[in-house]
């Protein structure tokens, strides 16, 4: 593949530094606005950039439409996860969760609406928050991360109601099982635990690495990604990407991919997964690889499907990871273009 000719601009100290920062940027999290027209992306320097999807997808999009509409410093540390409620954008990174108003976020100098820190046990090092999950029925937010607990925060009052303990190492990811309601959490200790929110107790534990079919000891035992579809669950990371039947806690399908996966989601009748390696993998439930769509980053950390009903023209899949770019897939089959920080 031909490399594009490098730009011959006289580079002063500031330009070199900026270029180096962009080269070493990692986008950890994304979130779509409630109106569906904007995408927020958070990176490892603690910045959040808001991109206008409607402008970038419109027919007279220029190079500037692929740049953020506004970028601001949200946290001191990396922004590991973000979710959107119908009015707020919640971002979490180094130990705190902050809320931003979507209506105000496009103005310069936006300040957070509130910030909360869950009660941590250790005070030596502030643990990070790796995953945020909204439970709409209870109007609460679940945070999980470095201190191995799941904290529940009530969104109206802002108080921390429950702390679910059980993991022995830090938690990577969360998923919500709508019907029960139950929360699944996957962690560094290699176990996927189901928590019943009403009784606040651990309902089920699946230790993935103990199952021979899916364990891969040379990668480790950590569970990096989780997705659930009421009766079914797919998880991956160190062990192979596997589809589980929750009631019987048995692995039904193992997806044949060697690279550890960092994000997985159910979409219509497919399972989309991404991780090390620059492709998004499309799997059928039977375990066959339907397609591998290449992106522009050497490794992907987050996938986001814009399914907001208010903006059907912005229905796209966006992928971000080990680069400063967010790939936009209008049709799941190929990469349309990339937004960039």
């Amino acid at each position, binding site marked *: 593949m031909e*490399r*594009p000719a*490098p*730009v*011959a*601009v*006289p*580079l*002063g*100290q500031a*330009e*070199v*530094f900026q*270029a*180096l*920062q*962009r*080269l*070493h940027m*990692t986008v*950890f999290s994304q979130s779509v606005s409630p109106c569906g027209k904007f995408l927020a992306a958070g990176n490892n320097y603690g910045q959040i950039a808001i991109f206008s999807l409607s402008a970038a997808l419109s027919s007279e999009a220029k190079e500037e439409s692929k740049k953020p509409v506004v970028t601001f410093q949200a946290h001191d*540390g*990396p922004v*590991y996860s973000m979710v959107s409620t119908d009015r707020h954008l919640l971002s979490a990174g180094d130990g705190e969760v902050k809320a931003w108003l979507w209506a105000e976020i496009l103005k310069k100098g936006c300040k957070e609406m509130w910030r909360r820190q869950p009660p941590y046990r250790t005070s*030596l*090092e502030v643990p*990070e928050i*790796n995953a945020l999950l909204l439970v709409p029925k209870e109007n609460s937010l679940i945070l999980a991360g*470095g201190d191995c607990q799941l904290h529940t925060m009530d969104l109206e009052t802002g108080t921390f109601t429950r702390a679910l303990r059980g993991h022995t190492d*830090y938690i*990577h*990811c969360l998923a919500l099982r709508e019907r029960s309601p139950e929360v699944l959490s996957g962690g*560094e200790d290699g176990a996927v635990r189901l928590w019943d929110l009403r009784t606040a107790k651990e309902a089920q534990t699946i230790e993935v690495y103990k199952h021979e079919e899916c364990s891969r*000891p*040379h990668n*480790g035992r*950590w569970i*990096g990604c989780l997705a659930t579809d009421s009766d079914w669950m797919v998880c991956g990371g160190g062990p192979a990407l596997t589809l589980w039947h929750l009631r019987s806690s048995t692995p039904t399908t193992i997806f044949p991919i060697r690279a550890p996966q*960092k994000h997985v989601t159910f979409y219509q009748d497919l399972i989309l997964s991404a991780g*090390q*390696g620059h492709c998004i993998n499309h799997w059928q439930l039977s375990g066959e690889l339907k397609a591998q769509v290449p992106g522009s980053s*050497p*490794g992907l*950390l987050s996938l986001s499907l814009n399914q907001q009903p208010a903006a059907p023209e912005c229905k796209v899949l966006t992928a971000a990871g*080990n680069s400063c770019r967010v790939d936009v897939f209008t049709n799941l089959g190929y990469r349309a273009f990339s937004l960039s920080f």
Partner: protein
Amino acid sequence: MSSESSKKRKPKVIRSDGAPAEGKRNRSDTEQAIEIEERRIQSCVHFMTLKKLNRLAHIRLKKGRDQTHEAKQKVDAYHLQLQNLLYEVMHLQKEITKCLEFKSKHEEIDLVSLEEFYKEAPPDISKAEVTMGDPHQQTLARLDWELEQRKRLAEKYRECLSNKEKILKEIEVKKEYLSSLQPRLNSIMQASLPVQEYLFMPFDQAHKQYETARHLPPPLYVLFVQATAYGQACDKTLSVAIEGSVDEAKALFKPPDDSQDDESDSDAEEEQTTKRRRPTLGVQLDDKRKEMLKRHPLSVMVDLKCKDESVLHLTFYYLMNLNILTVKAKVTTATELITPISAGDLLSPDSVLSCLYPGDHGKKTPNPANQYQFDKVGILTLRDYVLDLGHPYLWVQKLGGLHFPKEQPQHTVIADHSLSASHMETTMKLLKTRVQSRLALHKQFASLEHGIVPVTSDCQYLFPAKVVSRLVKWVTVAHEDYMELHFTKDIVEAGLAGDTNLYYMALIERGTAKLQAAVVLNPGYSSIPPIFQLCLNWKGEKTNSNDDNIRAMESEVNVCYKELCGPRPGHQLLTNQLQRLCVLLDVYLETESHDDSVEGPKEFPQEKMCLRLFRGPSRMKPFKYNHPQGFFSHR
């Protein structure tokens, strides 16, 4: 009248008398004659009364007329009087208005204000008691005071004028005296030359230099003046000298001699005839090129002494036809340097001053008009002649006061002092920093080639006490080879790997693990940091595209370089970055999670103190070293 009437009547009567007189003129005639007589007498009486009445009427008329005449005369007299009076009244009114409007000159004078007047005027003029009440007197008094003051001031003025005359005369006298001193001083100066030399005060030398400077072309002159001024005012370590032949410089401007004797004429003709055979086209072109690239015979030499006794010698030349300045540089050190292999390019005259300012590589002529000149003689670019002529850096043009605008070629660019002055200080400082950083690198390279990373004592706090990974190799790499490496694609695409940079390869080893680091060294080191790209060979090949932790290690040295700069002026950056890479490799290898399926102990037992081994969705290792506690944590 009455006689007339009677005469008139008489003929009548006669006639009438005549007619009846002959007939019966008896009693009827006599009676009738008596009646007629009576009647005649009556009519005469009537006539007389009539006349009387007429006369009376006339007299009455006359009287009446006289009376009216008199009255009329009286009325006329009164009328005249009235008019006289009216005229007088009008006249008086006019006079009054005139008087009222009269502006006496005294109102045009600005008098001092009342308070001041009462304060300043002596009492015999101000007469306060009288003037306070009477405004007329007051004004008179004020005018008096004004007059007094004016008289006094006029006196003063005359005095001052006379003083001035006196002083002017004195000045004239003194000037004459001074002008008579000049020849005497000259003789004293001549006599003092040996004394100057004996006492090491080269005033005369400086004077001679200024004399030579008059023959310099304008840009070199500007450079000379500004550099000398800067050297005297701010920087004692800078010294300026002029080299070259003054006679040749003078010869350039001498008009060709018109008066030629026959001898020289015939000589010239002879020479011409022998040269009838025209030189070949190529030689002609060559001559034209040489002519175009000709240098002015005089050049300015500037020496910058740095703290460690090393000297940067800069020689500035002026290319006359191209109107640009070039510079040749040389670095001499106090002690003879043994050049390590990898440091070959660091101090070479060709590249030591490259990119002093970003993008100023000195391989292209800065004067856009030169392109047209080059086309005429077939020179493609100045790059081929740069080694011989010196580099035409942009900062050199600015020091000579030549300002070339980027886009449009100008017909004449004149040398400007203000441009040179503003750049002098920055450029001199940059030059010194450049020489010192290159010399520092020189020393560091010598040590690196032997496998030792020279960390100074004031930077030791950045690293833990025990570092096991070792630097094994340090070599230079060609630009093309760097571009061909598979793990440097990102840097090349970002445009950070130009051909003005220097490239090196370092190899760090520990046990079976080998870490290759490709280094891009920008000429603007150390304000622009070196950029590292890593490739680890241990249980497979790991680069930033397939291992997040390698990417994090690169970020630690590339993005977080400011903590590694060390004390000013930051020449320790490269060695600190290399040492940090060794520490990072240690951490990486020791914190690698043990693979349960493989038998045997871990190759690298964990010796570093870490709070947590993995953090975040990408499972980062703890690469940040905390001083003085000595443990590793995550950023």
